[in-house]
């Protein structure tokens, strides 16, 4: 591609089961402006190599064979019984109305018995395909059976450009992969886009940890796409830190296919000025006794806005599964807009789905405590905003991530860099 064509993805990051349209929270609209140059802008270090884009597909195909062996296709009699059950269920529950678009789609997906088809992208398959096209060569981080691999990928945004990294992670049985991603750019710039599309395959008993830190300047948009597959006993941990960019789109979809698979997501974000934050999470529990935890903590200031869609789908057969989602949002100013849409879909008994949200201003007892230490309400609110950045710097897993956070901190609060002069140098 020589440069971008103007393009709009109308239903990006769509939640699996739509809710009332008037809430305006079902999906996001991602606009690609015309004329952005395609930049490489990607640096990679560690156990990572370009090419090998089919390694993940091969791993998924192998998993498909293993899964089919463990889960034989239903017999004709079983299918007939299932169809009769669904019909009766629809009659009893919905007074004989047709299945919703979501229910029909979910039923068809399950019926297809294809792990590849069920391997979804958080921002949507259409946007993900576009990002992979822009990225060109895919980076592969692979750990062989029982081995460990680690890699750092930095995407550097540029003015009037689109910079994207496509990364596949294949963690074979019993292996460990640590991946750090930094999406960074200098201060205010004319329009541009930076992003990543990451596919993760965690084989049996594998552990994958991904930390993605986004510190783009104003004027840029960030697209963060992830697709996860967790085999039996696999653990995938993802930490996403969203601090910069005028607009950010974070989408993650995961298939907890194997029994005892575990996925945890830790999201931290800051919204200031008129920044827009969009998050879409969809975790589908297929395996028995699978577990997912989504935790989001954010601060919204100025006239920023945020929508978070979190879907836990407890699919038929996932007995003993447990999913939980929790969000804490601090609304610093009156002008902010916050939407939190937790959805728990359940098609199995003996499962648990929990959600909770703490949304609001600083509690009175917290304010008094801070005041008793000399902090006015304004000072307390400023402290909450800068604390998100400071915590991100403290938790940064690589020096590149820490430096990026500190640079952003300095832009947000002059003098911030001095706090980390020893660590950053």
């Amino acid at each position, binding site marked *: 591609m020589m440069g971008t064509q103007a393009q709009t993805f109308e239903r990006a990051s769509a939640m699996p089961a739509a809710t009332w349209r008037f809430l305006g929270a079902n999906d996001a609209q991602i606009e690609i402006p015309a004329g952005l140059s395609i930049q490489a802008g990607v640096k990679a270090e560690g156990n990572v190599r370009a090419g090998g884009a089919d390694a993940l597909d091969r791993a998924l195909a192998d998993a498909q064979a293993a899964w089919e062996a463990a889960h034989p296709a239903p017999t004709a009699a079983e299918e007939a019984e299932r169809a009769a059950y669904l019909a009766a269920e629809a009659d009893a529950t919905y007074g004989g109305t047709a299945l919703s678009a979501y229910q029909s789609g979910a039923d068809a997906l399950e019926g297809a018995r294809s792990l590849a088809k069920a391997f979804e992208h958080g921002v949507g398959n259409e946007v993900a395909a576009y990002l992979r096209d822009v990225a060109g060569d895919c980076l592969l981080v692979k750990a062989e059976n029982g081995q460990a691999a680690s890699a750092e990928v930095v995407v550097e945004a540029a003015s009037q450009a689109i910079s994207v990294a496509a990364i596949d992670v294949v963690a074979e049985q019993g292996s460990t992969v640590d991946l750090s991603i930094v999406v960074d750019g200098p201060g205010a710039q004319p329009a541009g886009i930076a992003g990543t599309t990451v596919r993760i395959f965690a084989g049996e008993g594998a552990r994958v940890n991904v930390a993605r830190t986004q510190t783009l300047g104003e004027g840029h948009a960030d697209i963060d796409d992830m697709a996860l597959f967790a085999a039996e006993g696999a653990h995938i941990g993802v930490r996403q830190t969203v601090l910069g960019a005028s607009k950010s789109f974070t989408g993650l979809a995961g298939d907890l296919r194997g029994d005892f698979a575990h996925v945890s997501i830790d999201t931290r974000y800051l919204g200031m000025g008129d920044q827009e934050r969009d998050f879409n999470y969809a975790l589908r529990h297929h395996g028995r006794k699978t577990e997912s935890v989504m935790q989001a*903590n954010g*601060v919204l200031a100025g006239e920023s806005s945020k929508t978070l869609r979190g879907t836990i789908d407890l699919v038929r057969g996932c007995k003993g599964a447990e999913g939980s989602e929790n969000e*804490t949002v*601090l609304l610093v100013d009156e002008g902010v807009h916050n939407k939190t849409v937790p959805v728990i879909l359940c098609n199995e008994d003996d499962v648990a789905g929990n959600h909770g949200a703490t949304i609001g201003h600083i*509690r*009175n*007892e*917290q304010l*008094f*405590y*801070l*005041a*008793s*230490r*000399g*902090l*006015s309400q304004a*000072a*307390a609110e*400023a*402290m*909450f905003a*800068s*604390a*998100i950045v*400071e*915590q991100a710097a*403290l938790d940064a897993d690589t020096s590149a991530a820490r430096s990026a956070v500190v640079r952003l901190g300095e832009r947000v609060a002059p003098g911030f860099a*001095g*706090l*980390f*002069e*020893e660590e950053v140098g």
Partner: protein
Amino acid sequence: MTSDALLRCRGLSAAVEEKAILHEVNLEVAQGQVHVLMGPNGAGKSTLGHVLMGDPAYEVTAGEIFFDGADITELAPDKRSRAGLFLSFQAPVEIPGVPLRSFLRAMMEGRGEKLKNKEFRRKTQELAETLDMDPAYLDRELGVGFSGGEKKKVEMLQLLLLQPKLAILDETDSGLDVDALSVVSHGMELYREACDGTLLIITHNTRILEHLNVDRVHVMVAGRVVAEGPATLIDEIDAQGFERYEAAPADAAESALR
């Protein structure tokens, strides 16, 4: 009123949601002294501490509070803090999302003290070690997952960092084991040594007072200060309890104030 009273409240009454809790409390604490406020559960001791600090949950319905020569009855709590008043909380709140060190820095900057980062980190680290506290706590979210003892140590750390003119310690010793109690006592001594600090200690436990020279004891019952006396009053209460004050607080107030 003594001429050198650092804190003086006179005729102080306060209510929460229209329910009167404090009734015409008179109290004076001189600069550099150690005062102890004792009383049975529910007497209003913690309420007095919060009202002196300006907790907006309480309404001052009568009386006045003077601190360091100024009337602070209507002053906002953050301004009282910056004027040199400190309240150590019985149950310190948790502040998720804010690392302890960020909070401490914001606290110091609120007083116009711009310490260089290295100096600030060194100072907070030293104080943490002095209080037998793992410095790793400085990078953790304020109070989140801290034990009761660690929370109280964090209160003492703030006391030593701020060095206020007067510190009200609201049952800082409650729920502490012997080791943590010793650390907190040490913190109080350090505070006194560092800045000739003034203390108003709200406690049930006389053990925390063992290493302090108590100047004055106040006994509160049912929202009133019903007795005052020298340090020997602590031993009397230790032996006899509050029964004689609880029997007829109003009468006792007349006879026991001395």
